[in-house]
């Protein structure tokens, strides 16, 4: 899939006005633990940023701060030029524009697959039921689970559930999609079906922040790899540069442990 990322390496060329998500000087503590330390990260429109790093490095927390599922102690986060508001109507409106895919899928267990995908459209976007369903079926077909529309999440495999979760997020026409370890809870044989959907999204120009341990995906789909360790961004580079020639010792150590199996 080398031809996939047509915009690979293009982040240098993107003008500053194309910045969609900007984190500046973000800090967060969990009690005594300083999980995010002076994080500065800018994600351009259409860019695919993959965040990797060892467990406990703060990469999931980073992902969750972007739609304020985690609050931050200091610093600033803005999406499309607007700083994240406090909890309330404003924030809800902003979250609707930010799609999120979780490690544990989190499909609404008491609703069918179709209802999962129409709920946000109907209740947040105020779309009428008929066109919401039409769009939902289209998206479910696109992620390859169209035939499961009337089942409940518990009747689906993990890979199918995660693809429904992606469809649910896409139904809101998000400006940016956040993926918080989307394949970490999946059986190995189901990882690819989810990654393929994500590859396709990246190809279609969706702005994505992906926290993952899938180095193959990082290589093939990312415009930029962000390596985190101990709450800091240690290294940022294009996938080619990062995987073939990591600059920091921490990244070298990390890569030596996960590659070459």
């Amino acid at each position: 899939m080398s031809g996939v990322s047509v915009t690979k390496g293009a982040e240098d060329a993107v003008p500053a006005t194309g910045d969609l998500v900007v984190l500046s000087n973000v800090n967060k503590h969990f009690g005594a633990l300083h999980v995010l330390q002076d994080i500065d990260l800018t994600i351009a429109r259409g860019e695919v940023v993959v965040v990797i790093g060892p467990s406990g490095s703060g990469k999931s927390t980073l992902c969750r701060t972007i739609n304020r599922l985690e609050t931050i102690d200091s610093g600033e986060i803005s999406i499309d030029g607007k700083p994240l508001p406090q909890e309330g109507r404003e924030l809800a409106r902003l979250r609707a524009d930010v799609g999120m895919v979780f490690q544990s899928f989190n499909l609404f267990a008491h609703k069918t697959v179709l209802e999962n995908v129409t709920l946000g459209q109907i209740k947040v976007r105020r779309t009428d039921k008929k066109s919401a369903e039409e769009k939902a079926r289209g998206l479910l077909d696109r992620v390859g689970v169209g035939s499961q529309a009337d089942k409940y999440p518990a009747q689906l495999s993990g890979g199918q559930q995660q693809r429904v979760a992606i469809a649910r997020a896409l139904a809101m026409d998000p400006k940016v999609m956040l993926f918080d370890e989307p394949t970490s809870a999946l059986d190995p044989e189901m990882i690819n079906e989810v990654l393929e959907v994500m590859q396709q999204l990246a190809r279609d120009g969706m702005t994505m922040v992906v926290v993952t341990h899938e180095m193959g995906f990082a290589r093939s789909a990312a415009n930029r790899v962000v390596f985190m360790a101990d709450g800091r961004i240690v290294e940022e580079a294009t996938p080619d540069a990062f995987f073939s020639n990591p600059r920091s010792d921490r990244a070298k150590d990390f890569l030596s442990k996960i590659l070459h199996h």
Partner: protein
Amino acid sequence: MFDFLDSGQYDLLGAFWVTVQLTLYSAVGSLIWGTLLAGMRVSPVPLMRAFGTAYVNLVRNTPLTLVLVACSLGLGLTLGITLGGQDFKAMGFRLAVLGLVAYTGTFVCESLRSGINTVPVGQAEAARALGLSFFQVLTLIVLPQAFRSVVAPLANVLIALTKNTTVASAISVAEASALMKTMLENETSALFAVFAVFAFGFIVLTLPTGLILGWVSKRVAVKR
């Protein structure tokens, strides 16, 4: 032995009908009030949380007799709140329902709150991530799943409520146990028969409640 049943002197069915009505109105009322209380107890607004907690702990720990007498004497006779009841009988009935709702609502609230705790936090997170408001997350995602997991405990509350309606006789509502007292005074020779009749009456009301809701609880359980 059960001659007193044929005498036509006692309106047994009528008395139990009052019990059934007390139960039904109070059940619906306490379900609504209990849900509102549970909403308050998980709300992000500190004042609502404080009210919910204070109310539940105060009313739950007050004897029901006291609650009902307070409704009847305090609200009804002293403050003149009749809830639209035209005569003494209607007023007593309505105040009894009010007291039962106020009391039983706390138990519904606490059952429901334990049900809310069974809903994985990721469900609410996913809903918030879609842009749903707190109220929408609660009513569309969390409460529907919470209710499904507490049908069996709610059946307990409903059975307790059915039996608690007997306390309404303390404020002169003519329900089953009020009639029982009258009959016990008149039919001293058939004391145990009278007891048996009323015990049977309550079992007829409560046993199906438990069985049916037990079945419902299995049917609606959320599969994860």
